[in-house]
């Protein structure tokens, strides 16, 4: 069983990953650290769909590198503030992936992203990043069961 964490802050992704691995057994955790990384992993996700996706909302487009791919015009204009929701809408277009629960795990207040949250459905949900990770772990536990 695989859980994907989409998070560009290493400190956060490493802490969450460590927390998940300590709480659940037989779980594989994959960290994706950019929007482009999410798009690049799409083929693999179709072949091996994850059980849950933890999605940060504000995401960088890509990591710095010598031959980095620049974002397309629409993404340049929209910026990184809603990158997590863009990734989510990609999932919803795929029959195999559209029902995967997505947990939007973000420091953003609910009010800031209410219009986007109104469009999520099924078991997808929003959890605010907090010093207490137990709500997140509890939710993951329920979804795994």
């Amino acid at each position, binding site marked *: 069983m695989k859980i994907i964490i989409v998070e560009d802050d*290493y400190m956060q992704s490493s802490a969450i990953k460590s927390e998940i691995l300590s709480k659940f057994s037989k779980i594989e955790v994959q960290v994706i650290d950019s929007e482009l990384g999410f798009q690049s992993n799409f083929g693999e996700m179709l072949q091996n769909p994850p059980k849950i996706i933890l999605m940060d909302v504000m*995401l*960088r487009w890509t990591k*710095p590198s010598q031959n980095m791919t620049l974002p397309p015009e629409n993404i340049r204009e929209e910026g990184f503030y809603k990158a997590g929701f863009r990734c989510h809408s990609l999932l919803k277009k795929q029959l195999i992936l559209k029902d995967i629960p997505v947990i939007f795990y973000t*420091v953003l207040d609910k009010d800031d992203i209410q219009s986007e949250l109104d469009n999520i459905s099924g078991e997808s949900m929003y959890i605010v*990043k907090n*010093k207490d*990770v137990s709500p997140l772990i509890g939710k993951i536990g329920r979804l795994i069961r």
Partner: protein
Amino acid sequence: MRLIETILKIVRINGKKLSSVNEYLKIVGEFSKSYCVILWELNAKTEHLTTLAHWFLNSDQYPSIHDLPKGKSLTGFSLEANESQYCTDMRKDGRIYSECAFWIDYNIYSFVTIPITFRDGNKGALNVYSKKVNGFNEVTRKNLAILAAILPDFFQSLRNNVTYNLIENVDAKIKLSDSLLAYKGNEVEVDQIRLLFEQICKEVSVVFNCFETSIFLKNPFDGTLDYHRMASTWQPNDSQKVYKADKNDGLTGWILANKREVKITDLLLFDEQKHFIRSEYPDITWHARGNIRRAVSEILNITDTNQKLPPMGFMGAPIGIGDEIFGVIRCCACLEGPYYFGSSELEMLNLIAVRLSHTWKNFIQTNLINEDIGAWEKVVIKISELDKFVIYEIEKEVPNIFSIFEKALTLLPELIRDAEITDVRLLDKQRENLYFAAFFGEAWDSESTNSGENLVRRQKKFSVLGNSAGAKVFKSGETLVLDPIKEGDSYEQTFNGVKKLIVAPLQFGQNVFGVLDIRSKRDGTFKKAAKSVVELMGRQLALYYQLVTTILDHGKMQNEQIQTYQDFVHQVRSPIYQASARARKALNLAIQGAKPSILLENLQATSGLCNKATRVAENISLFSDLAKKNDVKINNHYLEPEIILKLLREIISDNIFMADPERNLKIDVDKKTFNILSDIRVHLDHNLLEQSLNVLLDNAIKYSFDNTVISISADLSNKSNFQINVKNFGNAISPEEVSLCKQRGYRSPLAVATTGEGGGIGLWVIDNIMKAQKGSLEIIATNSLHETHIKLVFPADKKHSR
């Protein structure tokens, strides 16, 4: 006694219409108890006698023939001999040839023909016909000769009277209309003139007994050079309503082309007499035969298509002053005698044409002057209307400049008559092309039937280095007027058939950022004020553009500031939550008796995260002061080597710990270089230095490529200033971005693409706090594509040896 009574009757004839001559013939007919009386006139060129007027005992009858060859008729013989002739029995008289038709058609037996000479010199004859053999005795014939002798004077007097009355009536109507127009001031509409001209047409038709009198005029306000029917007493749908300026055919076209009057005795004989007609009017043509025959037959209630129609006279005169032709007035086909227009009628028509010319010229000039005055009044009104729209637009959260442009374009045709195709083109972000920001006019949709072509046209771009009208104006900053467009005028055509254009710059100060373009496919030139109106509208639109851009920038800045604070909140909240989580985990690990190394790792993370949160909080405070333009609070101390090295150790430790170890980033501090601090004294705020170094290192880690080294060193500048250098290898700052990077809110496209946080204020804050310490932030644009070199430069003094 009967003769005197008859002459008295003639004297009492009401002579206000030319057709009153028919009453004269009636009196003659009744006096002589004849069946019909015909007044013939000789056409000297064709040597044919034609019916000028007639009277029949049965009023619904018309002569079955309308022309007699002079050499083949008794009437002609009488003229030749200048002596009355009497035919007692047409069946037996060997002198008659052509008149036989009267005997056959009307059962006429005898007639008298008396030669006369009209006062204009034309010859003619008064013929009196009877159904009896030897229908006129000698006394009657003598009396008829007396009545014939006074006919020319009567006819001339009638013509003079009619002419005088007609001119008087036309003058009265023009005078009345003039005073109405003067009263109405600048509201003179063409329909008012049309009404006057219709009245004149009606007056002329009544006086000359014609079924058609028409006036064709060129109207400079309708955008063509063609002559349109302004007024007419005959307006069937299939009649010609327009004479093209460049295609002068038909009788009216000939008058327009040759600027000469035309008089044709009988249009029905046009083909037979073409030779004679063209000797006077070279190459003249006539096409409307069918229309006019049909119309006259209907009016005269003639259903028999074989029946000969009465003669159809025609005359027309040019309306114009000097060489300038405005149009034509024409009269056609008399409904009763006299059927022919004489030279005096033509002279009268010319006189009326002169009056029409002055009236029309006066109308045009008044309207042109009024249009000029009115144009500026309208400009004020329309700009005021546009202002209201702009106020409404800028009250919106996000004002739309394109809506303002579109609104302005819809108002332009009301200011400039021929503004058919209009657009606003703006310079694109790359400053390379002008693109259509707004457009208006039917041609934008109707020029192509293919919607794809329309789309291509709308998306067309014009290089500012090119030869388009817009590019020329953009480069020169001067308004371009091609009015009319001549062969050889070079510009890029977006539409076919454009005949004139004005393009004005959208300019604010020295900055041209677009153009306002108006084009027209109509003939004629733009009105005088057009160029100034387009320039004024261009300046106005430039002001609106500047206003909306400023509002949007202001709003953007406000939004950016809000966004920046939100970013800070997230940046500080995130490490606090994580620090808290790590601390809790460390506590649990300690309780569970975990290995010291694992415990230490979590405590280090907690400490680093707390330090990061503290620095972000400090940064918020600095940003807040700077944003409010408050002075940066400075607490200066001398900087010692060990202090900066300790500071660097802490910052590096906190930052590198938070980077993904898989990136394999290294931070190298060249400690030896900091020994120069032993020889110099640097006075600075330690806290601000920590903030600056933290931001620089945070940036260096964020933008460095994996497996690279970030190096930190110190040195002295040429001016002996102390410098701390931070170099990294990653997304570099280009030379063009050096100054931009110090601006608040600037984030390079590469920075935006590779970090999911930040508001572009880090370097702006450093720049300000360095300036507050009399130092500077220097960003060195290197030749390397990927190397970034940033310096913190502080003033330094040499230490004096004790």
